[in-house]
């Protein structure tokens, strides 16, 4: 069965700091990879996705993620965070052409103004 690990449970940063959130998955076959964000009191929203092609994926709000197949990783990055980035971030994976997604435990990001 596939599993997703997010290494950081809670990250606290000051505004303008750089962000990197780790995500590793366990499935050895072809996967689709996603980062979702959940702002306080809101629903899950897609930040970015990777299916194939360029392993560096750019998403909304200045986020990007890099797929490193050899490391089974899909880390999320942002060069300069803002207070409004305070949210919970979930990495998710599903097998190519399969339905359900498996989510990581989530990382709570708190950005101090």
């Amino acid at each position, binding site marked *: 069965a596939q599993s997703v690990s997010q290494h950081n449970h809670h990250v606290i940063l000051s505004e303008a700091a750089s962000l990197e959130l780790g995500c590793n998955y366990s499935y050895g076959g072809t996967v*689709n990879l*996603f980062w*979702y964000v959940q702002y306080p009191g*809101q*629903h*899950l*929203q*897609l930040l970015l*996705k990777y*299916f*194939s092609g360029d392993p560096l994926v750019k998403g909304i709000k200045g986020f990007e993620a890099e797929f490193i197949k050899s490391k089974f990783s899909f880390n999320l990055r942002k060069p300069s965070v803002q207070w409004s980035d305070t949210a919970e971030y*979930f990495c*998710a994976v*599903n097998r*190519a*052409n*399969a*339905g*359900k*997604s*498996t*989510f*990581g*435990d*989530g990382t709570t990001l708190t950005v101090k103004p």
Partner: protein
Amino acid sequence: EPEVTQTPSHQVTQMGQEVILRCVPISNHLYFYWYRQILGQKVEFLVSFYNNEISEKSEIFDDQFSVERPDGSNFTLKIRSTKLEDSAMYFCASSLRQTRGPSGANVLTFGAGSRLTVL
């Protein structure tokens, strides 16, 4: 932008009562899902539904749970006899699945969630 809508946004119920959570997926989507998130925990897959039948379900989705697509637009989750541990945020999601190619496949669009509190 198309949305997945869920009702109610919050429901409080007594243990043992039946609850129905409703979802209206995006109109051209073919796959429908229910996930739940217990407060402070991860998002957990419950069930996926395609072509009017369950395509996959998790261990959480026991006989107390059922799903239905009663008409062309609604997708419901029923909990027959709620337990305290069913208290959670329940998310409906839908996706446009293609059998080949990555474009759009398996990108889940989530609803805002229905918060269920069982007393």
